């Protein structure tokens, strides 16, 4: 069982839950955990959430509320410090970045697909690594950008962030203002001759578009690790 140790509001639709999990074996940046809720009549609902925290920290998940969801409205709006629920994890070994890997890293996140990428950025900062790491982060509007203040703080010493806002931009917006396309990828992505490693996370449509675009830029499919999530809520 996991106990909610703290809750952190992120955006109007997302909230981070910091968890105390007895016996937690530690996690790797990019892994997820499964949350299982059981109602009084025995009905169970299970969802996967990416871990947002650095490996040496307690596991924290950032959950986006999906209005007709069974689980996410509870986790975003109702759960309190001290509440407990069942978790399984850490899970996954494919979509994982280790700070010792010296290849330049490109992170591409759509919406709450940024969560496991944030764990990688935090892992890099916590390890004091100087690996070049760049995050391309697509959101609908500025108010949907998760972790913005922390990302801006982290953006130095070889880590930088390129934002694109697809549905509306605040006055004076300096970032990109469209869905990810080949021109945008060409401007942001590391040159292919540096044999970078790429992590792409978001909806299936987003991930396919970004991964296909990177291959057109000359990236080897084997450099690109993808994780697609569905809006199960």
């Amino acid at each position, binding site marked *: 069982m996991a106990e909610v140790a703290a809750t952190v509001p992120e955006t109007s639709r997302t909230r981070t839950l910091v968890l105390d999990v007895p016996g937690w074996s530690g996690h790797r940046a990019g892994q*997820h955990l*499964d949350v299982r809720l059981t109602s009084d009549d025995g009905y169970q609902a299970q969802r*996967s959430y990416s871990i947002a925290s650095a490996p040496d920290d307690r596991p924290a998940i950032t959950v986006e509320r999906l209005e007709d969801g069974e689980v996410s409205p509870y986790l975003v709006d109702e759960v309190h410090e001290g509440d407990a629920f069942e978790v*399984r*994890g850490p*899970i*996954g*070994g*494919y*979509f994982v970045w280790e700070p010792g890997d010296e290849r330049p890293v490109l992170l591409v996140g759509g919406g709450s697909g940024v969560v496991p990428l944030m764990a990688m950025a935090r892992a890099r900062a916590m390890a004091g690594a100087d690996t070049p790491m760049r995050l391309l982060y697509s959101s609908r509007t500025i108010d949907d950008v998760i972790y913005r203040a922390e990302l801006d703080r982290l953006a130095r010493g070889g880590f930088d962030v390129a934002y694109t806002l697809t549905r509306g931009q605040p006055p004076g917006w300096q970032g990109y203002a469209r869905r990810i396309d080949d021109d945008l990828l060409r401007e942001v992505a590391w040159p292919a001759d540096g044999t970078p490693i790429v992590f792409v996370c978001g909806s*299936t449509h987003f991930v396919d578009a970004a991964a296909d675009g990177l291959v057109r830029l000359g990236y080897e499919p084997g450099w690109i*690790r*993808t*994780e*697609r*999530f*569905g809006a199960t809520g």
Partner: protein
Amino acid sequence: MSRRLDGNAIAGDLMELFGTEMTVAWAVCRSCGAHDQLAEMQVYRDAPGVVGRCSHCEAVLLRIVRAPGRTYVELTGVASLQIPG
């Protein structure tokens, strides 16, 4: 319409069934011979069970169906599995 995800989405179920992390395991597709990690397969889980398909030829690699007290696993489309560790 069924939503297409990938093998990461069933990593927890695979770990429970096989007792180890399986998304990094390499599977050879019996249909086209492609060699991919299970994280890369196409996964549909809106059906009564989970269906995993080859990301190259879309042949069915595996099916997992849970019923009360038991789980059915079919690996008919997998010619071989290489599990690290």
